[in-house]
């Protein structure tokens, strides 16, 4: 079986103007939604209490809300979670209440109403912890970006490092844009997924760059754009198959991993889709824009000839 019997190289670089426009538009849209709607940060980052409780029979949400209101928790968010018997309760941070005691209060109050209630999960995060997590997350993002640029610079050339990281940060912004647009919860595990995507989708650029470098050495008389077109065309099959395989795993997680893994898998899915696109149609045009040339890899032979031996 072979899905990609391509006879001639596809002139990707000649579409450069359109693809750049497309990515610019999606990028600007993502930034727009991030700016206007913002991310729906989960309790990990904002601080507060989340409780997941399970009832023996379908839960009566208005009654739960009413019961919580009697405890003074008017702003508690009560919703079904997964099934009609499972209820998710979110309470924002309170100044006057000791955070860790809150979950006990809520549980006691719910028990009075219905003895069958069972705690499945409690998460309480204090304000300082949330702040630390945000700082650490930003640090990790910065460190990963620098590390990748540094490594690609060492292995290839600074132009490659720079275009790869721009292409992939573009993916990250788009993932965040999706989360902002749909107001999906942005939790710690989503952050982990975003960083994993950053490491993973750079692979994509690396594979294409590897071919470009090889082509520069092999195809001595060819134009830069043709060299890049050839590299992309010849790696396309691998790109699609690899991402398809990874996506199969992620899809299994998305559908069967339960609520905890759902958004994790969602971030990965968006990341995988856009990394195919960006490594081919963002990173490579950027390379041309930065003026990559054969001389970046092959030192002119003249130097050797002029050498004077003592």
């Amino acid at each position, binding site marked *: *079986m072979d899905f990609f019997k391509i006879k001639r190289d596809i002139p990707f670089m000649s579409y450069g103007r359109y693809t750049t426009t497309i990515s610019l538009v999606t990028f600007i849209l993502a930034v727009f939604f991030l700016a206007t709607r913002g991310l729906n940060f989960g309790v990990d980052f904002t601080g507060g209490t989340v409780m997941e409780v399970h009832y023996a029979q379908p839960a009566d949400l208005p009654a739960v809300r009413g019961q919580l209101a009697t405890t003074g928790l008017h702003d508690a968010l009560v919703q079904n979670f997964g099934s009609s018997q499972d209820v998710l309760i979110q309470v924002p941070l309170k100044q006057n209440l000791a955070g860790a005691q809150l*979950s006990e209060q809520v549980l006691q109050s719910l028990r009075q109403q219905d003895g069958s209630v069972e705690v499945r999960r409690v998460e309480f995060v204090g304000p300082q912890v949330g702040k630390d997590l945000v700082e650490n997350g930003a640090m990790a993002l910065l460190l990963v970006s620098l590390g990748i640029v540094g490594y*690609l610079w060492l292995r290839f050339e600074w132009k490659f490092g720079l275009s790869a990281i721009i292409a992939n940060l573009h993916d990250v912004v788009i993932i965040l844009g999706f989360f902002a647009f749909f107001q999906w919860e942005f939790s710690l595990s989503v952050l982990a997924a975003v960083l*994993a995507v950053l490491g993973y989708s750079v692979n994509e650029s690396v594979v294409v760059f590897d071919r470009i470098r090889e082509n520069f050495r092999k195809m001595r008389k060819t134009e830069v754009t043709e060299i890049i077109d050839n590299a992309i065309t*010849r790696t396309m099959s691998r790109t699609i198959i690899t991402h398809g395989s990874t996506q*199969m795993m992620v899809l299994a997680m998305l559908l069967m991993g339960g609520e905890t*893994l759902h958004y994790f898998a969602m971030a990965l899915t968006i990341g995988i889709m856009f990394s195919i696109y960006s490594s081919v149609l963002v990173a490579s045009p950027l390379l041309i824009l930065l003026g990559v040339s054969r001389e970046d890899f092959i030192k002119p032979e003249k130097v050797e000839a002029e050498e004077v031996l003592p």
Partner: protein
Amino acid sequence: MNRYPLWKYLLILFALLAGLIYTLPNFYGESPALQVSPLRSSLKADDALSGRVTSLLSDAGLVPEVVTLDGNSVKVRFASTDHQIKAKDILAAQLGEDYMVALNLLSQSPQWLSDLNALPMYLGLDLRGGVHFLLQVNMRAALDKALDAASDDIRSTLREQRVAYSGVTREGDTLRVKFRDGEARAKGEEELRQRFNDFELSGIDQSGEILLQAILKPEAQRRIQDAALQQNLMTLRNRVNELGVAEPVIQQQGADRIVVQLPGVQDTARAKDILGRTATLEVRMVDEERQAVPGAMPPFGTEMFRERQGGYLLVKKQVILTGERINDAQPGFDNRTNEAAVHINLDGVGARKFKEATRENVGKRMAIILFEKGRGEIVTAPVIREEIGGGRVQISGQMSTVEAQDTALLLRAGALAAPMEIVEERTIGPSLGAENIERGFNSTKIGFLMIAVFMVAYYLMFGAVSVLSLGANLLLLVALLSMLQATLTLPGMAGIALTLGMAIDANVLINERIRDELRSGVTPQAAIHAGYERAFGTILDSNITTLIAGIALFMFGSGPIKGFAVVLCLGILTSMFSAIMVSRALVNLIYGRKARLAKVAIG
């Protein structure tokens, strides 16, 4: 050209065999068990204890499956939860309060695997259920306490040395001593310099006042904070023991936080109660005219308490001192006899009261009682040899160094060094934990199957080789996680699935390269060779970038995210090995021996 030397095959075989052995324990499941650990550092879990446990159980007609000695505890495995609960009641009643008996789960894997140190993966709280607390230690309070104690000490020192001063005040981290004249200040400075090494002393004159300024040195500040944290850690360990939790985790995190993880604990209200409890300490006189009779009503004006060493004492109700008056308690040695001793440092008020009490009661015993949960226990009951002034007290005699450490800790634990606050809590119910395991396992299984079917259909024989090496990757990854006993969390399971999905990339790269070479008219053998050689550089590059992301996640991630990062990093290493070495070995075995190969099944 496509042949491996024998040692490479042997290496791969050895790696796979080791992988198999260390993966095996994960399939055996777990049985109910009990963990018996001594609560006192002077007691050891040894063969004698395990013998005692076995005989106690056989007396009750219970036959445990296995009794093992593990670290400082004896673990007993049972066939059913019924036996486990029954045995717990028996052991808790018979062994008394010196031992903790906790419910636990033990792997059912056979003894020879346990002897090889092959254990199942260590499951995180989100998979096995339990509570995770992050406690923030209030360092400001620890410093305040130390500074208040120091200003008390300065007062009493100046008084003892008969230096005229008119007051000690505290502003932030600075203490100011007011003197009447410069001469007194010079004398005071000299006296204080000898005793208070932790402070930077300097004389200043401010609006006509003659002052001596004492500023806490930064290194002393750090030491006080560190000591406060260590003390709180010790206190928490003691308290958690009381909860009867098997394998609790109590660790420092950062400069001022403590992580407490209690696997299997469901009663979070009680856990919070015990962690946040403040113990109090009281010093009272022992009533030596009457004998303590356990079970009987204590005589009027006295109370009966149990001694830590066993036995009971009658103690008068009148309190001489409370724990708040104790500034510090340290284990050490008696200067004269070189016996193990505990040195106690009392504050000004405490020192005065102690002096009065010891003057009136020479030759009698005093009891130091620790109250927790409204129940008192006598830590120690030494005899008063002479009047003790100055607030420096030494308790010695009949003590081992370990006991001295224990006692000093208990005296300090009278109160936490600094108050703590729970800043993060994560509780996972046991049913959710089990569900999480199932979900993680199922999604990995389905994903793996989908990839397997696709790869075989698309690359035929080479697809099958890729799937086999992916299987080897999974085996090695699980074995490595079991071997390192790294904590497996739900994001960690997601990490396993994700690394498998990503690991196939290396095989796709290789297979595509081989196809590419074949298309350009190279012979099959040469194509296989070139395919593996050329793909290697690319595989290395792409894996290293992912590794960079994994390492950053490990450095900055917390809890479950760290688990994900560990799996990601290990998965990259195992996938490099299996995708390159294992798959090459298989291809070599299949095609390498044929000298004239006309066609390979790569689709």
